[in-house]
Structure formats: C-alpha cells, structure tokens
C-alpha cells in the first residue's frame, strides 16, 4: 500500500486533490492515508503528486490487500484471468470466445462505479441476489471475484474479505433471456441495501441490425432503454458457432 512519510510531509494537502476516493486526511499538521478507505489504486504514487516525495509504497501485507490493489489499479494483470485491471472479458471477445450465446444474457455489474468504491461485503450482497434470481456466476478462470467465493452457486464470499474496499470489482455471470426480468427485479431490490453504487451492463447476442428483442423487458420494469453500448463488431475469429 501507500503511506505518507510523516517526517517528509509538510501538510500542504496537495495530495488530497489527487486521491480517487478521498482517503487522505489532515490532522491540522500532517496528511495521512486512512488504510480503511484507501483502495490501493496507486494514483498518488504513479502520478508523483507530492512535492516532498513523501508518499511511499509499503508492501501489501496479505492476499486481500494484493487483490484490492489489482482490482483498483488497471495497470496490473490479474493472476488467473491474465487480463489487466479487474480482469474480465465480458463482450470484448465474445465473437471469438462465444461465451454469451443466443438465448443467454451476460450480466456485468461494475460495483463501486462510478468512483465511489465498494466494500466487498456489498459486492457479496449483489452477487448473492443475482445467484438467487437465476444468474450463474462466472467462475474464477473468467472473473476475479469468483476467487473469493466460498460457493459460486450462491455468491457467498469468504468472511475475511468483507471489510476490504476496492475502487471497483465486477459481479459477472449469465442468465437465460427468460430470467432477465427476475434478475433485474432482484437488482432493484438489492440496490436499496448497499452503501454504494453500481453500473449495470447487459450483454446480448444481436441480429444484423444490432437488435435483440429481449431488451424489451425493460419497458415493463420502468427501466429506460439503453442509449449507450459497447459493440463487438464481429471481426474476430473464430466466430462463435451459436
């Protein structure tokens, strides 16, 4: 993690401007990083924001601190998935991997985004709500959060990780198109129970016009139709067979 060398700190508070999650406090004399709020994104370190060079790296003390750092810093590669940052492929390579097939919906929940961060206890609530509503959560070889799950069929995380705060982590899985309404209703319920935000993405196979009628279920739930999308334009090989 990062810490502020108290002997070097002059209390100028410049570093506070550059903290992504407001984790740097000031006691009237010196600045200090609150380890319970810091997400280990390393922006303060990489951008060399301190004129006194008082911000220093400290060895990450356990697996959860390392996980926190890898999820919060996009420069890092996740050890299992091999993908940078939060390490998930979602729609990006679906034309090659065929991970989300016709009749299926990829559910991609960016916990803590935009910018609030997320304690893993809240990520667990959302994962468990999804699993209960019919989402088959992605396994550890596809998405990092699964490495912390005691049971991938329920979304339960190991208790030891609950109080770690990350800049973001993705709850990822798939459901059948006919279960999408049920999943969205579950998300509407659980959004009331968490102390942060999430950004929701739904991955669907589309026709030649970029459409999929399954998205129509949003109307009945009072959810606005999406105007933004991340479009895999189908130039990858081999193409998914389904």
């Amino acid at each position, binding site marked *: 993690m990062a810490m502020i060398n108290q002997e070097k700190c002059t209390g100028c508070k410049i570093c506070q401007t550059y903290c992504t999650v407001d984790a740097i406090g000031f006691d009237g004399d010196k600045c200090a990083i609150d380890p319970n709020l810091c997400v280990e994104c390393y922006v303060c370190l990489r951008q060399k924001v301190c004129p006194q060079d008082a911000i220093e790296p400290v060895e990450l003390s356990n697996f959860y601190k390392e996980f926190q750092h890898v999820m919060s810093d996009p*420069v890092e590669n996740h050890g299992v998935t091999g993908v940078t940052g939060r390490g998930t492929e979602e*729609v990006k390579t679906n034309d090659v991997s065929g991970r989300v097939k016709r009749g299926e919906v990829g559910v991609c929940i960016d916990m803590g985004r935009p910018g609030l961060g997320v304690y893993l206890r809240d990520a667990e609530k959302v994962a468990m709500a999804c699993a209960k509503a019919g989402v088959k959560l992605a396994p550890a070889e596809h998405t990092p959060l699964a490495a912390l799950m005691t049971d991938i069929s329920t979304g339960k995380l190991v208790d030891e990780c609950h109080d770690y705060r990350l800049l973001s982590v993705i709850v990822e899985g798939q459901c059948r198109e006919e279960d999408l309404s049920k999943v969205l209703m579950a998300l509407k319920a659980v959004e009331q129970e968490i102390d*942060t935000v999430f950004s929701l993405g739904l991955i669907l196979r589309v026709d*030649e016009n970029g459409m999929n009628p399954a998205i129509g279920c949003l109307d009945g739930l009072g959810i606005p139709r999406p105007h933004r999308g*991340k479009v895999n*334009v189908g130039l990858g*090989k081999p193409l998914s067979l389904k």
Partner: protein
Amino acid sequence: MTHSLHRSGDIESQKKDFNWFMYQTKGVNDKNIKAKALEFIAAAEAVGSENWGDVKTGPITQYRSEEIREKITDKSRIRGVFTNKEQVVAFLKRIKEKDLGMSVVITGVLSEVLPACKEAGVTPHSINYSLGVWGKKDRLPDDITLSITTMCGHHMIPPKFVKYIMKQVQKGKLTPEAGSVKLANFCYCGIFNQVRCADIIQKETGRETP
C-alpha cells in the same frame, strides 16, 4: 472491464465520443500480437484518432507514439478515441480489409455506432448495453464532474482534480485544452476524450482558448 461503457453527460456531447479497441482472447490469439496491434494503431492514426494508448505504457497525450509502439507486448491493450462517426466508419473499413482476426469493439451512443457499423459493412455480433448507475446515487459527484471522470472508466481521475482544473481554467491559468490534457494523462488506457473534455470545461467555465 467495462471501462468505456458507462460514460455520462449530455447526449449530444456523447455523440462526439467513441472508443475503439483491439482485443486478444486468452488462449486463442493472444501470442505475438504486436504486428496486429501496430496495424490497429496505423488505421486509427490514419483516420485521426485524437487519443490512444496502451494501458501498460500510457496515452499519447503523455508519451510519444514511438515509445508506446516499442513497448507493446502480449499483455498490451490497444485502444483509443474518435470524435465523429466518419472516423469510426473509415477505421472499421480499414480493419475489416486487413482481416486481422482480432476482436474489435466500438463503444458509444448506439444511434451513432450502429449506423457506422452498417456503413462500414461490419455486422455487430454482441452488445454490452449500459443500463446506467444503480444504488446510492446521491453520494455521487455533480453531473458535470461525472461527465469528465467517467471518461476514464477505471476512475483514475479524482473528482477533486477535476474541480482543481476547472478553477485553474476559470482563473485563466490554463486553457480548456491544456486542462483537458492534464486530466487525460491520468487515464493510462488512452480512452479519455480530451476534445470532448475541453468542450465541457469551456462551457462550464465560459473560458475559451485565446
């Protein structure tokens, strides 16, 4: 990651904001990617990609194009920014013609991206649709700040830094363009649209470049 998907702000402004991506798939086409990555970069530069980069090195707003190219490895992620539909069409046509076999993703407002795909002669395979932000939205920063910070989906741009840059522009110490480049440098991937950012800063501060 879905770091380009959930941008926010005025829709007309978002219509001038596209991201392009080359993706390798683990275990399928993720070895010796450099030559293909260079083809993507060449196509993007030919049509005027305003920003691009590799998360392992950084964006061209901060690093020389040659340096980013030299440092490309199989762990690299190559991506960038377009500011109009015509660039997207021209880019897709070039990449289709090259037939590189890598996954290509374009993120943006669907009413712009889908017609661009059609015009370029490519057929969308899958879409990750943004259903926006859920949960405790009252804890979020103001909409203007969010319209800037969400252009780095990894959220490497601190909201307080946006406020600081706005103040510097208001005081006349920075132009909107110079301020937007300072913000862009925090987005290692090179997907931050500094052109759109300068527009937002200019509108918000009432300051124009002399």
